């Protein structure tokens, strides 16, 4: 086997499933039962008429493992479509985070200044705290959180990645 095959890569996979009870457990159980990684997983209904949900999974593994993950997902009865956005062409991926910063004085001002650079919005404020909303790539959200760390970072809530292919074609 060549080195390239064994190299661990990160993939973003979009999965269209029936929005029925237990479907998320099937997907998560498949990953834990077979020892695959989940770096991030998001799910919500996207089609209320046909009762379809879209799951976005960020996972990592060798090319062989990634192929297995996709085939195993396709085997699940309520799964309709599995698309590997990472290899199927360009896509956009975004994550939203809510970040609570508790500080006063200069740190409080500095946190607002950095939030401005990241185009994060303060969506809640008290005399001693802010809640910022930041949207962007995982790397951008990571960077923002790192910068908030010394400025009184108190709490973080992240959505995980949602992603969609660029261009006119739907999933």
């Amino acid at each position: 086997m060549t080195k390239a095959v064994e190299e661990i890569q990160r993939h973003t996979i979009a999965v269209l499933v029936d929005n029925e009870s237990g479907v998320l457990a099937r997907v998560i159980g498949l990953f834990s039962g077979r020892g695959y990684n989940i770096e991030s997983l998001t799910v919500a209904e996207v089609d209320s008429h046909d009762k379809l949900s879209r799951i976005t999974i960020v996972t990592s593994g060798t090319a062989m493992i990634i192929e297995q993950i996709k085939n195993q997902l396709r085997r699940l009865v309520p799964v309709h479509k599995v698309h590997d956005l990472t290899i199927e062409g360009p896509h956009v991926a975004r994550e939203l985070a809510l970040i609570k910063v508790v500080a006063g004085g200069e740190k409080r001002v500095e946190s607002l200044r950095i939030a401005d650079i990241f185009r994060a919005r303060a969506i809640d404020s008290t005399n001693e705290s802010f809640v910022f909303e930041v949207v962007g790539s995982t790397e951008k959200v990571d960077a923002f959180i790192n910068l908030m760390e010394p400025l009184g970072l108190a709490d973080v809530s992240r959505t995980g990645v949602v992603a969609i292919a660029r261009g006119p074609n739907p999933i």
Partner: protein
Amino acid sequence: MAHHDTLTGAEILLKALVDQGVEVIFGYPGGAVLPIYDELFKQNRLRHVLVRHEQAAVHAAEGYARSTGKVGCVLVTSGPGATNAVTGLADALCDSVPLVCLTGQVPTHLIGNDAFQEADITGITRPCTKHNYLVKDVADLARTVHEAFHVARSGRPGPVLVDLPKDVIQNKGEYQAPSKVKSKYKPQVKGDLKAIEKAVEMIAHAKRPIFYVGGGVVNSGPAACQLLTQFVRMTGYPCTLTLMGLGAFPGSDPLFLGMLGMHGTVEANMAMHDCDLMINIGARFDDRVTGRVNGFSPNSKKIHVDIDPSSINKNVVVDLSVVGDCAHVLEDMIKVWKAKQCRVNEKALKEWWKAIDEWRAMDCLAFENSNKLIKPQYAIQRIYELTRHRNPYICTEVGQHQMWAAQHLKFDLPHHWLTSGGLGTMGYGMPAAMGVQMAHPEALVIDIAGESSIQMNIQEIATLVQHRLPVKVVILNNQYMGMVRQWQELIHGGRYSESHMNHHPDFVKLAEAFGAVGLRAEKPSEVDGVIKEMMAVDRPVIVEMRTDASENVFPMIMPGMAHNEMVLGPEDKSRDKSGSEEDGMVLV
């Protein structure tokens, strides 16, 4: 508005089962399924086999399914009834057996309340079923049952569980016929023609080819087995079968090399190792087949035909894959072969068979017989010789006896060999034989067992007697969990930790206590007599044969070794120089 066709959930359920072609249900009643049993009582289209433990109900349904090609049906109650069925479901998933298991459930308003005999069975069985359903509304019942059967039998078959809360089977609703239910589940059955053409080209140009065929061909049906046989004979290439594939190609055909894998023949394993083209049809590169993966057939191109895309490139990377049902793909392969007027490379093939015949000449399954002790291989050979004219269905439990049976019995027909391959479930054989006998009342059905395995579901003798199922159980009693003892001898320094049972029941008296017939053979000279006697009796028979306790299954690919590193027998020194003791301990 009262519809004249409004039925209770239980009535809808039974109507759906009849419309799905169910004839026999294997089950055990309990509180949550009483309304279903009440309906069963009132009708006579569905027969019910009352088992003594729910695990046996599932294995019996597996036996029924695998010997007929139909979907097996199980009915058990909630809680412990359902959890007892779990091992059977896991077994059916591993070996791709189509089943529908109906479980009772507490009423919907009690779900999640830790009610009496409540278990989250859809949660528990999610990883050991192909799919499962919890029916929350009687309006969904008929559709769900029809879909469950469709999912169980379509694509790669497997067990499907339908959980039925008690209020759902008591409420009234309308029935929907199967024709009115459209499922979105549609696995691919036709293979890609371009890939098939490429495969045929590779097959025609091979110099040292081998067909490596698995249970997928058996599952695909008798037509697939015939097409396989036709194609293999057209090419004149050698063919080996997996444990699950036995019967897919005639065992008596000279092109058949025997089973491959951990306890496969020298000729099968060496041909796999040295081939230049491997044609895998409906097998899954299981670890019991491949041995050490990086030493597995290192110089061959590999073609893999499988209905399950997730089987492809899972354990072994292949050069060409065809996703599709084996029957369809084989049919297309033969068409293409004929259309292109393919010819094999006769000269190369002759050389290849010369090499194979040399391996064959080693006669790797030979054993030293004794006139004092019954050798287990001898017992199985005699069973074969004395029963073959009746084309028996053979079931096994799990362990040494299973491997000897796989090595020494020859199957010319598919669906006549039933064994727990993937999960390796001790206690599988006798209940499976019950299911086979239900489906084929006139047939000779034999369970070859070990004294340890048989005790895992020994209670089912009562079921055999109650339902007048004349199954013949042959227990090869060597006083040990033989395969455990073998591994302890070969890999764990002869430390026989807990593999010896120093107390066994008197199997003859036990059989009689259940109302069955008990027979015993203690010397080789008694073997033929008890086999003939057991065949002559039209009742369930338990035969105990006291066999040589020290016998091991050879050839053996030690854990962590490759196909060309087989240990051939007790005298073979290669097992000492392998240095694999520690690796072997890690692997199973």
